[in-house]
């Protein structure tokens, strides 16, 4: 309601994106009149709709030759990960396995398509396959069939040298299925890593994990405070801020996943919230002149050269996020009194206020298709943040989380259908993922305290068929 009467210039990103999207399926369509002050789940609809468009069955994979306990353990992992990935993608209706025919499906010759079209099932697509483990080596054969036409859509054989890679194969096949059945709308997010900051003793270290919380591994181990990680567009580097023990300044680090790192020279002891430009040549971040009193938005090259103050305002300006074209930057500023979401062109011109609701906004993150910005907001007089989405062109606002605790630091998945964030609703800060409509919430970390998730882009080396 409150957003609708607001006149707003449609920004360049939106225009360009719309042109690009012509002829494709729109990923998301928000249709609702939200009330911000009531904690009400908005009626956000994801297309293709999970419950109406595509019915998918995922039969348990079976042992190809010898059915040992080792094979059973691998099968259990593979079936669970593949099911979770496909269910999380929010493209499919997936009937319960209890309705499935009992006959195991080892290869295409085992499939009786009529059995998958009975009224209780009536699926459009069927996944099945087999798995074999021989002295550590594993082979997975995976099939996707169109039940209506009885034709094979995908047939894949994966040879892996270590059965610890079973999860990875399941993720990869899930992403292939999503890519095929979403008509290219999504390339799947199951292999896209999430970087985050994890409390370790007195310090916080940067970690990376799979999107489902598995396979957590450390990127830093310096014993200091490492915060606000963000990926480069090619996923090869992470930028974050570091406060080393006994130091009296924050540093801006760019660390390659292969180990090399660079510390950028900065004018003062304060820096926060680095964000790579979409073309990978620049960083936007928040820092301050040595004798200044307030943070401002700066950009520089990745070696720290050509440092430029973009916001030039005597207020706190922080938390920059680039539009996907790199033409605009969203940021937080308290120049109007309290921290609110503002936009400017990436040369610092054309500054305009986007959110006008009062209270406190923080941590904006621009959606990959350019239409939305997700951020956290705390209404005046309350002490907890919740996750919101604003449609940039119209200013319409949608509340995605509600209830206990404070939910902060939202970050889009590379396909723009999901959002990762941190919340202390269960006690310590933990990382959650959900659909972009707020549904299908999953807690993916459970131990210690974890914050500031940053979802990587699509893997760049992948080959799609």
């Amino acid at each position: 309601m409150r957003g609708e009467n607001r006149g707003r210039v449609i920004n360049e990103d939106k225009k360009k994106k719309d042109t690009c999207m012509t002829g494709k399926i729109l990923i998301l369509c928000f249709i609702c009149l939200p009330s911000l002050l009531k904690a009400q789940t908005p009626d956000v609809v994801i297309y293709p709709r999970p419950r109406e468009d595509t019915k998918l069955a995922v039969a348990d994979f079976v042992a190809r030759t010898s059915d040992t306990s080792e094979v059973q353990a691998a099968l259990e992992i593979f079936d669970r990960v593949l099911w979770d990935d496909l269910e999380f993608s929010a493209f499919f209706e997936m009937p319960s396995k209890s309705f499935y025919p009992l006959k195991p499906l080892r290869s295409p010759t085992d499939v009786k398509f009529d059995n998958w079209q009975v009224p209780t099932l009536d699926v459009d697509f069927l996944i099945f396959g087999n798995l074999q483990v021989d002295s550590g080596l594993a082979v997975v054969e995976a099939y996707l069939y169109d039940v209506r036409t009885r034709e094979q859509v995908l047939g894949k054989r994966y040879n892996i040298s270590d059965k610890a890679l079973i999860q990875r194969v399941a993720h990869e096949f899930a992403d292939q299925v999503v890519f095929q059945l979403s008509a290219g709308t999504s390339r799947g997010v199951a292999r896209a890593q999430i970087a985050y900051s994890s409390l370790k003793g007195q310090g916080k270290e940067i970690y990376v994990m799979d999107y489902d919380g598995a396979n957590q591994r450390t990127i830093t181990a310096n014993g200091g405070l490492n915060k606000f990680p963000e990926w480069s567009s090619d996923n090869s580097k992470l930028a974050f801020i570091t406060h080393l023990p006994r130091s009296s300044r924050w540093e801006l680090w760019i660390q390659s996943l292969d180990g090399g790192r660079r510390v950028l020279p900065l004018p003062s002891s304060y820096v926060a919230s680095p964000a790579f430009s979409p073309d990978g040549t620049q960083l936007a971040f928040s820092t301050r002149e040595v004798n200044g009193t307030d943070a401002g938005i700066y950009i520089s090259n990745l070696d720290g050269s050509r440092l430029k103050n973009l916001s030039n305002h005597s207020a706190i300006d922080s938390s920059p996020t680039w539009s996907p074209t790199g033409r605009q930057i969203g940021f937080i500023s308290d120049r109007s009194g309290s921290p609110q979401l503002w936009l400017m062109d990436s040369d610092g011109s054309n500054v305009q206020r986007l959110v006008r609701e009062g209270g406190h906004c923080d941590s904006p993150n621009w959606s990959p298709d350019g239409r939305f910005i997700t951020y956290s907001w705390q209404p005046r007089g309350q002490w907890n943040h919740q996750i919101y989405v604003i449609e940039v062109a119209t200013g319409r606002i949608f509340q995605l989380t509600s209830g206990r605790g404070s939910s902060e630091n939202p970050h889009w998945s590379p396909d723009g259908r999901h959002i990762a964030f941190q919340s202390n609703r269960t006690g310590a800060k933990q990382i959650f993922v959900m659909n972009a409509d707020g549904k299908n919430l999953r807690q993916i970390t459970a131990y210690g305290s974890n914050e500031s998730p940053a979802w990587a882009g699509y893997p760049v080396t992948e080959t799609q068929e």
Partner: protein
Amino acid sequence: MRRVSLYNLSWFLCFLCLLTAAACQKRPPPRAPSPSPSRSGDIARNDRRAGSLPTVTLTASPSSVERGEQTTLSWTTTDTMSLLIDSGIGNVADSGSLVISPRESTTYTATATGPGGQATATTRVTVVPRSARGIITSTDLDGLQQAIEEGKIQPLFFEYDQAGINAEGERVLKENARWFQQFPNATIVIEGHCDERGTEEYNLALGDRRAQAVKVHLVQLGIDPGRMETISFGEERPFAPGYDEAAYRLNRRAHFIVIR
């Protein structure tokens, strides 16, 4: 740069006063022995033997000091009409002395110009960083550290989402500034902190704003900005563990540590 020239200018002015005073009295004999002692001023010039080369000596005593300590530059000349000492000192009388406190090691060259030509003399003052010797430094470090441990240096507290210093904060800073001045060689870090409400990104900027506000206030109270550093910890390092206003009030603070 500006500070250096002002500094030297003030010395120069003092020197002029001395000179004026000296002109009203009998001048004392030159400090350092000179091969051909001559009287200063116009009389000396009248006595000069036209055509002989000027001579000049320049010494610094002591020649090595710690940063902030003083040394005396002394010079004598003969057959000189004008004497110039470089490194920001300028034209001086043809014999005399000057108390200086260079910030870093400096080479001083005195150029004497007379009817017979020019002569130069050079001396070097070596300035050692304080920590290199450590005696005075550690005294100040320890003294201030002790004052912090004894609770004589107080933190100050802020309102929610504010970085303004209230009357109580001003009183605390005034008192703290007195201690900082008592130990002028210690370097202080001002830490800015926030309560846990609000987000980490904004709170890091808010803590920075608080620390900078305190630094600006202390500069106004006469503390050298060169011995103050600031760092924000946002909501990373709460004093009090609770989740109520009593705890939050203690966590919205700026406090002081001494690092060297």
